[in-house]
Structure formats: C-alpha cells, structure tokens
C-alpha cells in the first residue's frame, strides 16, 4: 500500500480518515473532477487517495443561469449552482462506474435541510464501494441550503448526530471559510460525530465587468478558488486542525506537491486538489508524485512524520490574552 517513487524509493503516504484508509492523502475536490469517469482516460483513479464526486442532491439540478465562470487574478469564480444528476442516477450509473475504475469513492452530498441529508445518506449510506461521504455544508451558489444556512454550529452538530447512525463509512463535513470562526464549526462537527472536517470550500467573491457595467457572474457572487485563496485556506486549515482531534482535510489553491505539503505541515491529514484539475486533468496524480519526490529528497519515509511539523495553536484562534493593555 505504499507508493513507489520514481527510483524505486518508497514513502509511506497512507492516511486514515475515520474508518477509511487512503493510499495517499490526495483527494479530488468535489465539483472539479465530475463523477471521476470523465478524467479516467488520463488519470489512473486507483493511484489517487480518493475521488470526491460532484455534490449529489435528492433530485437532479440544472444549475444556475450563465455566466457561471469568471477568471480573477490567480483565481476563478464559479457559480455553478450544484448542477448534478441526482440521487437515482448517481446510484445506478456513477457509483458502479467509479467502482469499476478502482477508485476510492467519497460521495459528496448536499441538502437544503437536515431532512434532505438524512434521506440521501439513508439511501446511500450502505452502498457498497462508497468509502466515505463528504457533506457539502458550504456551497456558496445556491439560494437555499448553502454556506450561510449551514454556518451555524448547533445546526451542524444536530445534523451530524442525525447522519452518524446512517453509515459506517467515513463522514466528512466540508466547511465554508466565510464564517466568524472555522474552529467553532469544526468543534461542532467533531461533537456531532464527524470523522473529519474539510477546510475549506470556496470564498464568496464578486467580479465586475466595468465596460458593460454589470456583474461578471449571473448571480453576482460566486465561489473563489485557485492560488489566490491558498494563504487564506492555509490559515483556516491550521485553525481547524488546532481546534479538533479528528483529521482535517485541507483544500484551497493546491496546485502542486509543495502546496499539498504546506497544508499537511500546518496540520492537515489529507488535502484536495480542485481548480488545478481544470488546467491539468492529471494534476491530482502529479501532486502525489511531486509530494513523494519532495519527501524522498528529505529522507522522510512516512507522511506522518511530516504532518503537523508547523502545527501550533495559531494566534488567530488562541484564547484572547487576559488583561493585556492595548496601546493605540
């Protein structure tokens, strides 16, 4: 289960996320890799840590009106709106295909209410071949059941308590960065029974077409991803990792192996590659190889020895020092 390096050297990249063991820490971010099979002719899916599918909802969704995409400096805004095939087709078509491709499948599910999520997980929870579920608590592009609705600690905790008994597979909560405290939400997820937390989904952003005096996206706002958000995501990832004992999966602007290792250094157990796959469909597999090479060069034989080398309680989420005078 170790990954052979180019020269036959080996680094043990295995990672445990709750009941699930990944062969390496590289996952594809939901919504950036389709249902996995679209890229299967250029990436060996079994070489990835796992494939997180496009978010599935109870019913199919057509998504938002165009324009859905805008490029911004070092990043991109998207407002797709959870276009997806819906539960029935996901189960009958997509899961069997992914299973046949040898992928470790993490199904992303999304709902507007706790009830919708329990129905989804009730239907898929025991589906053979699904190793984990990532609950999309953080879509910035839907009118109902999006990031804002779910950014309430008590709601997250209560919902995860409802979901926990419905599956033995790993349960991962994907959080929005646009909150007062990612740490508080991560703690709520841990207490609700989640096996891991993903930090973070896209940041809400906006772009204006000055020439036409209009928004570049039809819904005005979208989710910002890409290298532009990496420093922001790193900070949130570190904040979450410092606050909870369950693993944190880092996500946000990871373009190569070095980026992935930065997230793991600040405490992430695994990471997701997203926007990079739009540029280079084989990006996730390249990240695995680059990570391997970097660790080998440093003589590190286990990823576990690298994880958290820079983890500490970030000041941003440390308890405020008492009776400290502030000089203006």
């Amino acid at each position, binding site marked *: 289960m170790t990954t052979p390096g180019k020269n036959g050297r080996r680094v043990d990249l295995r990672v445990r996320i709750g009941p699930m063991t990944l062969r390496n820490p590289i996952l594809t971010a939901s*919504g*950036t*890799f*389709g249902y996995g099979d*679209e*890229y299967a*002719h*250029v990436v060996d899916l079994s070489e990835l840590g796992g494939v997180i599918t496009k978010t599935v909802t109870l019913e*199919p*969704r*057509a*998504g938002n*009106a*165009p*324009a*859905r*995409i*805008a*490029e911004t400096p*070092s*990043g*991109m805004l*998207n407002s*797709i709106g959870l*276009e*997806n*095939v*819906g539960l*029935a*087709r996901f189960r009958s078509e997509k899961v069997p295909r992914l299973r046949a491709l040898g992928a470790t499948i993490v199904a992303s599910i999304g709902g507007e209410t706790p009830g919708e999520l329990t129905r989804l997980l009730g239907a898929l929870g025991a589906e053979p071949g699904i190793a984990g579920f990532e609950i999309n608590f953080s879509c910035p592009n839907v009118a109902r059941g999006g990031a804002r609705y779910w950014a309430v600690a008590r709601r997250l905790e209560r919902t995860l308590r409802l979901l926990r008994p419905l599956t033995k597979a790993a349960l991962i909560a994907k959080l929005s960065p646009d909150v007062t405290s990612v740490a508080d939400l991560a703690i709520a997820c841990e207490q609700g029974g989640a096996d891991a937390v993903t930090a973070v989904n896209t940041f809400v952003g906006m772009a204006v077409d000055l020439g036409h005096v209009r928004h570049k996206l039809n819904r005005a706002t979208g989710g910002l991803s*890409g*290298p532009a958000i990496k420093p922001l995501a790193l900070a949130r990832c570190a904040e979450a990792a410092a606050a909870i004992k369950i693993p944190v999966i880092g996500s946000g602007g990871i373009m190569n192996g070095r980026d992935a290792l930065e997230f793991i250094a600040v405490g992430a157990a695994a990471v997701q590659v997203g*926007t990079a*796959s*739009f*540029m*280079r*469909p*084989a990006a996730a597999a390249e990240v695995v190889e680059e990570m391997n090479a970097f660790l080998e060069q440093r003589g590190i034989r286990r990823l576990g020895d690298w994880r958290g080398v820079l983890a500490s309680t970030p000041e941003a989420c440390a308890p405020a020092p008492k009776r400290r005078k502030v000089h203006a």
Partner: protein
Amino acid sequence: MIVALEAASRPAPWTQVRGRVALQRDYGAGHLWLDLEVPRGFRDPVPGQFVQLLLVAPAPVLLPRPMSVASVRTVGGRSVLGFLYGPVGAGTLALSQLTRGDTVDVLGPLGRGFPLEAPGTPVLVAGGRGVAPLLFAADGLRRLGRRSEFLFGARSRAQLVGLDDARRRLERMGGRLHLATDDGSRGLEGTVLDLLDKVGPRLAPPLVIHACGPHGMLKAVAEWAMARSIPAFLAMESQMACGTGVCRGCPMPRSEKARALYVRTRGDAPSLFGNAEYAMCCTEGPVFEARDLDWERVE
C-alpha cells in the same frame, strides 16, 4: 443531434500534450497567426472543434484559453495546428509573446465541429475574427470535394483578416467569396446579414449555413435561417474553465424543442453534454444548430 450524441455515449478522448510554437506571425489588423506543432498521437481536430491552450508557468493568467482551430497541416509526420487570434486579453497577449520553440500545453480536440457532410450548398458566414474556424471548414469542404460560398463581413477592409487565405481555399473548388464591410471600404456596405439577404436568394438551394462571429451576428444569422427553414450551424463562444464538460461552467440555453428532445432521450438528469435546460458549450457545442438554442437568452 442529441440522439446521435447518445449513440456515441463517450466522445472520442482528448489528450493533453506539450505543443511547440512553430510559427507566430502578424496576420494584419492587429491579428496574429500561431502554428503549434503537437506530438504524435494527438488526434487531429476537425473544423469547428477547439483546444485548450494552457500557458506554461509562470503565466499571467490561470485558466487555459479555449481556441478555435483555423487549420491542421501535417509537417514531417507531425500535426501542426494553426490559430488565428487577436491579442485582446491578458491570456492572448501572453500567447502573442511566444516565439518559435516556446511551449504551450494543448488539450484537445474538444467539442463537436461543423457537420460538413450535411446536404445542401455550404454557405460559410464569417464575422470578423470568427473567420478562423471557417477557414478550416473551407479546407474540410474542399477535401470533401464540395464547392462552398464564403460570406465574410467585418467593420472595415482592414478587418477582413485572412481574406487571402479564404480566397485561396475557395479557388480550387470554384467557390466564391462575398464581402461586406460596415463602412463600405470593401464589398457591400453593410453587415454580413445584409450580404446574406442579398446573396442568399441567388445561391442554388437547398442551402446549409456554417457560421462563426460575435453572438449578436450569430443570433441574426440563426433567425434569418430559421425563418427560411435553412439549417444553420453556429460556432459559439463561452467563458470556460475545463473545456471537457467537468466544471459545468459554459451553459447555453436550449430552445423549447431541444429541451423536450433532451428530456425524451435523457430524462431530467444532466449528462456530459448538458441538461434539459442548458447544453454545455464545450461538449455539445461549440457548434450548435440554430433551432437548438434559445436565442433570446443567449448572452
């Protein structure tokens, strides 16, 4: 169209390769011609298809740029893809700085091209820079031994870029070139639609239109053709991230009829090609038949 797509449930696979600049030259009126040599094994695009050009890092832009292919030649056993473009944004500006020997990542071929085998007298309608895929279509028709009519409109004489290339492509099959400029500096004074109005009735029916240009022009061409029950195939543009149907970033609104057909054949669930409401420009397009889109909602 959708039924045909169903038969080929997976489009022929694209690949991502490293292309090498073989030529970059001034093409007049602020336009450039770029030749990219691609390694063996890269499937040749057909007219109307596009590729995603990704600048090698460090690059001033993040995402790859969808670029319509203007020609495919074989040089020394390797394919050379030609592109006609204007450096109008940060991505194309950076592309314009590349010189012979520089590299660019090329992902493709993508999307569906013009159905050049469609029966009827082929009428190629180009607006400005939209001439690029139609030069390639003229090549394709010539290879099929078909004579085509080429209608080309632009703002002024100088903006009729690629005029000589278009003429050369047409001559061999005895095709004719018809020109229009907004300022009357060459050909008919007026738009390419005025030209279509004038020339269309004189051509041997039935006609089949293949067009590319600004969306406003394409909408006018689509409406002109639909009013006369002439099949028209329009190469559309959209913002894109991936170009392969994965990101779902390039929806084009379907007409009522196309929507009903989609539901009949695919149900209400999205597929690689789109969903009942929207077709993806990158996979079902970029070439659409006029009656398949809701032109009122096309941006």
